């Protein structure tokens, strides 16, 4: 149980982590076919990759909570349900297959000008992970701190200036406590 807890803690990292690599071509989807654990690493730069305990989350919630309509179950996301209640399973169910890792790239933004309005606001990959995971964790009391799921890399420490030890006398914030 120790290890499971530990995995769980590192698992929720969503953020700067990456693509869910699920086995391709899983035709009949039920929880037993799902991977035990998934390394989310495609976006990892400021934080280390997330070891996502897939098996644990299968116990906690339903596939649709994360995979929307792509696993063929009952669609919970209202926006997806407008069109996809009868779409069946998708060939690929990994997050990065639908959620753009370069969400604000010029080319991608151009595609949003297409008239199928329902998709104009699809979060990018990083946003999809965090919005889904943090949103659920907030509701269910799961871990929500950045480093609860993924510890910072050296690059991250540099960006966040973690070397600074705050002393009230220093810096421009004169009223510091």
């Amino acid at each position, binding site marked *: 149980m120790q290890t499971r807890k530990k995995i769980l803690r590192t698992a929720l990292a*969503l*953020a*700067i982590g990456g693509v869910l690599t699920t086995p391709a071509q899983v035709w009949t989807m039920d929880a037993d076919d799902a991977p035990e654990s998934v390394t989310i690493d495609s976006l990892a730069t400021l934080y280390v990759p997330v070891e996502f305990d897939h098996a644990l989350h299968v116990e906690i919630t339903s596939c649709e909570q994360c995979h929307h309509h792509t696993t063929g179950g009952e669609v919970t996301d*209202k*926006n997806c349900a407008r069109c996809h209640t009868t779409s069946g399973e998708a060939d690929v169910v990994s997050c990065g297959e639908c959620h753009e890792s370069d*969400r*604000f790239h*010029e080319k991608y*933004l151009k595609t*949003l*000008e297409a008239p199928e*309005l329902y998709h*104009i*606001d699809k*979060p*990018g990959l*990083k*946003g*999809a992970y*965090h*919005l889904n995971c*943090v949103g659920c964790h*907030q509701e269910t009391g799961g871990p*929500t701190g*950045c480093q609860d799921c993924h510890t910072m890399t050296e690059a991250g420490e540099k*960006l*966040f*200036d*973690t*070397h*600074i030890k*705050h002393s009230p006398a*220093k*810096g*421009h*914030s*004169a*009223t*510091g*406590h």
Partner: protein
Amino acid sequence: MKKTVSRRNFLKGGLAGTAAVAVLKNKESQAAHDFEGYPEGMGVLVDLTRCVGCRSCEAACNKEQGLPEPAKPFTDYSVFDEIHHGQKRRTDETAYTVVNQYDVPELDHPLFRKIQCNHCQEPACLTSCFVNAYTKTPEGAVIYNSKVCVGCRTCMIACPFYIPTFKYSSAFNPRIMKCIFCYDTRLKDGKPPACVEACPQEALTFGKRTDLIDMGRQRIRNTPGKYVDHIYGEKEVGGTAWMYLSSVSFDKVGFDTHVPKEPILNSVKDFLAMVPMVLTIWPGLFVGFHLLATRKENIKKQEQENDEKEEQA
């Protein structure tokens, strides 16, 4: 709060006075009513319901813009408790963007609000600047040329969101400092600003301003009860490139809900056309503004002027 309000009124008086002078002297000049912002410009939709106050945007901006090292690391959340002169943190010459926390009684969790320049469609900073230091680019950014800035601080007073600040480290060359939408390093090449890219929650959505308004409307429509039915910045001060969605009324999360729906300086837009003329009468205006701006400088200036008169006599 009181202090800033009185300063604002004070400023308004100053602007109106100056405008009157300028208009009087400029009856012949063409009105410059042709600047209505760029419809194709980019913007950012900030969704307060998504922001978790992680300060990644602040950290990214600090590095992207080469700003000084902060007093506390960006992982330090005690900054949310800081009160400076009775106010929450504001942007300044060391931070083009800050995130503040708001405890709203009807919610069981705090809300966070990121502040930076809103890149107005018809910027008051731009229209108020006598030396045309500001530019609204077709991409949507409001940028400035610090080389032509004379440090008169009119823009600081004119901005409805208290954004432009000055770097005084060099006494002879005060420089405007504010968020530039990452224009030089990113926006002009079609790339999203550093803060947007850093945000884990996609609380900041970068896109064409008109598309962002569609997205905002869609979020409000698709999730009934989640948002108040308003996109702050769609209409405020004539429209801003950075716009906001919130789950509670905007005044509860630090927004000024009393800003006019028209551009701040709509009535004195002739400023734009007046610039060349203004240059000729500029020394007088400049002195006037400094007189208004601070009492200290007022006294000092008068002393200087007295000295000069004495010298001339």
